[in-house]
């Protein structure tokens, strides 16, 4: 079932510089709707944008740069040397020297002898999650998304964001070997620790490994503390292949945002680190995108009972608005409208853009036989973003984006590589369950990612692409869809018809960060309006948006009849009186 409308939201800010490319990608998007079946054979004409072009492949070069380090805002995080019972820099076990991460991990587990057992159950390690409700097997190990599509088979690149060492292939990786846990990536606080892709990939990609500063493992080991934003953000702010590419509400801005960007994380405000909300113990913490809590009915819980959940309600309660007429009315909304819907009017704030559209069809163009990139978008903070990459295709960006709104009960059905679909309609990578009739659903804001990506034209399934590798099939370096898809599918013994096409896909990303200060929450008018933000959200009566056509017809008839009646009556009186006077 596809519920989304196929048009693109046009509210995104777009710099004039990328207009030609947008025009092309837009027309492609329009064309693709009509000519999906034939799109595969036709490579769109090369765009001559006149934008800055640089040759070669360079991805994730920013993640190895030193990040602003923050302390977790907890009693321990403020001044660990005063409050903590342990100064790790003084521990003899951590005096090193350490040659690599595994040696550090061994030292960590030497004292924290339950941490390993705890962490190997964590999704950051397993890259796998079985959803007991839908029965689906999820996680990076298996899923296809509509960004770089699949980590499966491409771990050599993608697993640089695996919280472990050396995962070159998830199928052969030893998930029981606790010494491969990467403690540092989450706990070090120098901001200088970084991870590289586990394998080198095609020689064209080798530039990614050049010129990195050496890691001082000993210093990093001695700096361990509770995870700060610099730890979580090193991966999560760069998901999907760059700053804020994937989520839209998680960008490098959140390392040091103003409270205008994020009222909780603002360094001029509450200055929360991630773990203030993503609470947990024993290396399990709250906040899941696979099974989010769409409606928290418990709220703050009983006094003195902290809850292990990342919902707004767990701190603010289920009736969060202050007493009074307005408060009562606003609290009326909390059963059907998620907090985020009103309190996050837009995402990709603070100057870092998010990708909103991706067209894989244009991938593979070469200049002088080499892959290249075009800078076609200048984002709010002045940094250029690439609107074309030979390895990925064309992109469109958005900033201060108005979310897409949907009924949502926390359950999502994924289109996996096994799912058969109807390619004449956009495919929903994650179908959101919920409706107005479902009391557990609320209206939620989402970033909707629109992509045109390869699929198996014969079997109508998504495909695994072999992107990363030092071989003749890897797309990144060889730029051949046919070989990359064939290799990707055969690698996992998946049925492949041998013929690929391109299909429109949507993925929905719940918008939960970048909460605005309360003064900037949505006004009533934004939704209670026939042309408002919830125009497309159906199945219920909403004051100010919906009205009964027959009521209006009858009512207008009544009023017009009264008006005409009195006018006629009055006119007749005047005419007849004049006539009486004459006679």
């Amino acid at each position, binding site marked *: 079932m596809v519920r989304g409308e196929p048009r693109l939201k046009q509210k995104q800010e777009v710099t004039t510089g990328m207009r030609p490319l947008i025009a092309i990608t837009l027309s492609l998007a329009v064309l693709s709707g009509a000519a999906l079946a034939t799109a595969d054979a036709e490579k769109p004409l090369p765009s001559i944008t006149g934008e800055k072009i640089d040759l070669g492949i360079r991805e994730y070069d920013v993640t190895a740069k030193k990040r602003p380090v923050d302390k977790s805002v907890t009693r321990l995080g403020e001044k660990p040397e005063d409050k903590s019972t342990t100064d790790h820099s003084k521990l003899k076990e951590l005096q090193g020297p350490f040659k690599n991460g595994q040696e550090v991990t061994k030292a960590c587990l030497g004292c924290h002898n339950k941490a390993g057992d705890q962490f190997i159950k964590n999704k950051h390690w397993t890259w796998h999650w079985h959803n007991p409700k839908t029965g689906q097997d999820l996680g990076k190990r298996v899923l296809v998304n509509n960004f770089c599509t699949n980590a499966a088979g491409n771990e050599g690149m993608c697993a640089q964001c695996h919280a472990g060492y050396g995962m070159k292939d998830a199928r052969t990786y030893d998930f029981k070997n606790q010494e491969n846990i990467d403690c540092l990536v989450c706990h070090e606080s120098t901001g200088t620790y970084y991870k590289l892709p586990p394998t080198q990939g095609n020689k064209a990609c080798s530039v990614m490994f050049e010129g990195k500063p050496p890691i001082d493992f000993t210093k990093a080991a001695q700096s361990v503390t509770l995870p700060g934003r610099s730890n979580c953000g090193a991966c999560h702010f760069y998901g999907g292949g760059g700053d804020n590419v994937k989520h839209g509400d998680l960008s490098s801005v959140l390392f040091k945002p103003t409270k205008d960007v994020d009222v909780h994380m603002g360094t001029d405000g509450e200055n929360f680190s991630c773990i203030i909300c993503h609470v947990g113990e024993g290396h399990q913490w709250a906040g899941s995108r696979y099974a989010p809590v769409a409606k928290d009915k418990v709220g703050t819980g009983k006094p003195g009972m902290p809850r292990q959940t990342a919902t707004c309600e767990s701190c603010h309660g289920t009736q969060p608005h202050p007493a009074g007429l307005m408060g009562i009315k606003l609290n009326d909304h909390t059963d059907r409208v998620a907090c985020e819907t009103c309190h996050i009017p837009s995402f990709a704030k603070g100057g870092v853009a998010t990708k909103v559209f991706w067209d894989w069809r244009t991938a593979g163009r070469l200049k002088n036989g080499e892959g290249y990139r075009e800078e076609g978008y200048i984002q709010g903070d002045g940094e250029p973003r690439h609107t074309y990459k030979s390895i990925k295709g064309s992109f469109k960006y958005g900033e201060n984006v108005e979310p897409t709104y949907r009924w949502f009960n926390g359950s999502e059905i994924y289109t996996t590589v096994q799912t058969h679909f109807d390619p004449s309609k956009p495919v929903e990578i994650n179908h959101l369950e919920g409706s107005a009739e479902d009391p557990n659903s609320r209206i939620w804001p989402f970033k909707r990612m629109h992509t045109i990506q390869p699929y198996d034209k014969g079997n109508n399934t998504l495909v695994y692409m072999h992107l990363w590798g030092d071989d003749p099939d890897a797309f990144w370096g060889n730029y051949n869809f046919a070989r990359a898809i064939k290799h990707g599918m055969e690698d996992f013994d998946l049925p492949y018809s041998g013929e690929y096409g391109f299909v429109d896909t949507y993925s929905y990303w719940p918008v939960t960060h970048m909460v605005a200060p309360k003064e900037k929450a949505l006004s*009533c008018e934004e939704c209670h309006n026939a042309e408002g933000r919830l125009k497309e959200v159906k199945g219920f*009566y909403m004051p100010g948006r919906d009205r009964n056509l027959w009521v209006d017809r009858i009512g207008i008839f009544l009023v017009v009849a009264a008006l005409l009646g009195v006018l006629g009556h009055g006119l007749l009186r005047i005419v007849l009186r004049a006539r009486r006077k004459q006679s």
Partner: protein
Amino acid sequence: MSLHKVKVFTRFERFWHWTQALAIFVLLFSGLGVHGFHRLLDFEQLVWMHVIAALGLIVLWIFAIFWHLTTGNWRHYLPTVNGLWPVARYYAWGIFKGEEHPYRKRFWHKHNPLQALSYLGLKLFLFPAIWITGLAYLSYGFWSSGPVSNDTLAWVAVIHTLVAFAIAAFVIIHVYLLTTGHSFVEHVKPMISGYDEVELTPEEEAYLREDEPGRILD
């Protein structure tokens, strides 16, 4: 029976009438806006306007109901067919021929039978209907328990809006009928000064001159 200038609209009655008139105009304006016929103000402002005017009017109604019952003024609205036909015939026919209005106001029947019947309908049906549906609409959050009640809300809105249109039609006819007397001003004046020409029985006249001399001018 003799014609006298008597105070028929007490201070409270006049206050009630004009405050209610103002409230109805505010409610019609804001209600049409909320409904989507205009957005001269934004939704939040319109809703506030509507809620405050409505709650104010309801408080006034509570006082007015008390006043009607305790002062016996409810008797002015007793429906009667006695004299109804001549009044109806007058508005449909006689008025065009320049006939005099067939009804003479009396001390305990200051409204003509058609008028009394219309006001009774307004007070017994339209006002309670819009009042009850309005309160139901306003208190939606307290009685809603899941999605079923949203359909109910839609029906509440349907009734509320239809009654609002009916009241708007009443206002139009009500204002127009003010032009049917000797003059518009003459017709409005009693609701400002309180005094109007009324037929008094000798007993009523004697009572007023003895006990409420301020209510009778000549």
